[in-house]
């Protein structure tokens, strides 16, 4: 796998004052600015309708910007697309799994931007498909129709497509939807190894609990960017309250609820119905990333 120059000067993704207004007059994002360095896994966190998917579209250049700019590796978004710099991993719900394509056909789709006019795959293309499938551990399934896969396997096929595309920037839309904890971990470790090659992954999620576990960087969004920066700085209770407003449920367990001694420490559980985010009283960053059971009883 090709390594990318991690210390390259321009940021992976740099958005400045981005405003997107749809044709029906609805402004989905207003004045959003953030910067994601190279070799980063960044979470894009916000409620439904906060503009996450619009921001994805803006980064890929699918929607015209009313104002502002998006630069990818220092180049305008449109130009980066033509060079196969950006790959997109869709949500499982957005894919027609009955479509008559096999696993290897989907991964080969990642190579199309590299092929000639007739899209005839070369030896190199086949090589990329094979090594991508091997890397996500799906080589044995290459001749399966995609609908015959489990949720996690489906996700891995599209990650393999992004790998085959040799993209430096990968946008993932809710990568942990319909995936069990074990698969989630294998996807996270794959993403870590991709980060270590210098890639940038922007992950839209409302799965708060796993964010501090695997993300280096966080962008909190609600119509505009509320906060962005390293996860341990940005991912705080105050910022989350701002991003989620009333949607989020807080449960503070302290003192007598937790223990019989007179220890005053508390545990805060923040959840919006997926894996909860737990803050421990000491506010020790190491303790924070401790594993939390998938669906904790938050009733």
């Amino acid at each position, binding site marked *: 796998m090709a390594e990318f120059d991690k210390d390259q000067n321009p940021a992976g993704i740099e958005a400045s004052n981005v405003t997107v207004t749809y044709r029906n007059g609805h402004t989905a994002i207003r004045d959003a600015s953030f910067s994601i360095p190279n070799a980063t896994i960044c979470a894009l966190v916000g409620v439904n309708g906060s503009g996450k998917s619009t921001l994805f579209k803006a980064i890929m250049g699918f929607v015209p910007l009313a104002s502002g700019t998006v630069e990818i590796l220092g180049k305008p978004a449109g130009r980066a*697309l033509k060079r196969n710099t950006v790959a997109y991993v869709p949500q499982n719900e957005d894919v027609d799994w009955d*479509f008559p394509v096999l696993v290897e056909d989907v991964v080969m*789709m*990642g190579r199309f931007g590299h092929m000639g006019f007739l*899209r005839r795959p070369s030896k190199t293309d086949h090589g990329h498909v094979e090594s991508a499938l091997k890397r996500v551990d799906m080589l044995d399934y290459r001749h399966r129709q995609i609908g015959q896969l489990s949720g996690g396997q489906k996700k891995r096929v599209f990650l393999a497509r992004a790998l085959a595309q040799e993209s430096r920037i990968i946008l993932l839309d809710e990568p942990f939807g319909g995936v*069990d904890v074990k698969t989630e971990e294998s996807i996270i470790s794959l993403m870590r190894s991709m980060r270590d090659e210098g890639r940038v992954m922007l992950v839209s999620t409302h799965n708060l609990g796993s964010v501090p576990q695997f993300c280096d960087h966080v962008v909190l969004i609600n119509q505009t960017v509320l906060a962005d920066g390293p996860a341990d700085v940005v991912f705080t209770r105050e910022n989350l309250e701002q991003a989620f407003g009333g949607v989020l449920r807080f449960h503070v367990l302290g003192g007598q609820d937790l223990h019989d001694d007179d220890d005053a420490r508390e545990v805060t559980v923040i959840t919006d119905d997926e894996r909860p985010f737990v803050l421990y009283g000491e506010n020790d960053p190491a303790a924070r990333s401790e594993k939390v059971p998938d669906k904790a009883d938050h009733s």
Partner: protein
Amino acid sequence: MLELLWLPFTIDFMQQALITAVFLSIAAAVLSCFLVLRGWALMGDAISHAVLPGIVLAYAAGVPVVIGAFIAGMFCTIATGFMTEHSRLKEDTVMGIVFSGMFALGVVLFSFFAIDVHLHEILFGDILGLTWRDVWQTGVVALVCVSLVWFRRKDLIIHSFDPQHAKAIGLPVKALHYGLLILLSIVIVTALKVVGIILVIALLIAPGAIGYMMTDRFDTMLVYAVGSAVVASVTGIVLSFVLDSAPAPTIVLMLMVIFISVFLFAPVHGLIRSKRRARMPAPGLEST
């Protein structure tokens, strides 16, 4: 009996009908694969009805009917898109109103212009009244359709399967979308004389549906679609000759027979197989 079956192949107008129907069914079958995969079935039906005012006006103005039909077809899709975006209605609701309205407009316009074709011929075709000119024209349309789709099929597949990815790798998505609509209009106009604009939708959906039921690979689906359409055209025309029935509906009926058999007996996705599979758990499906 055999002689009766062979007879249509020896008569001039039957030969013309057979060859034209085969050409048309090939062109329509190729497109039907994409219509089925994109969920454009209603769109195909809408366009085939909505072309009528365009055809009538083009006849009256003396311009090629393809142009009139194409403009009317485009108007239908654009008007549908605009009204869906600017109202609370769902797309199929708007589409139903737009295409039935345009069809009605076409029928009303028809009575204002003295056109030397019967409305009946436009609606149901006039497959036994073709000329050799019609035959080769349909042949050219089929050739254009098949070669365009074959050489661009990989782009069209990506665009149908994952439009976001198609855009992300810089495919000309607008060109693919409108290219397909243009081909669709051309095939509908070509079908005018053969099966008419009412029944053309069967040729534009059923073959793709048959192919889709039979296989999990696109190229194979294409082959099944074209094969079933050609078989239905030939058997339909011969049968209509023997039964003395209208050819176009007989072709459509043959397609339905193939579709129902495939629906029941297809190797993997047929009703019987999937029922049997539901009783036994599928082997080799791990949970990760």
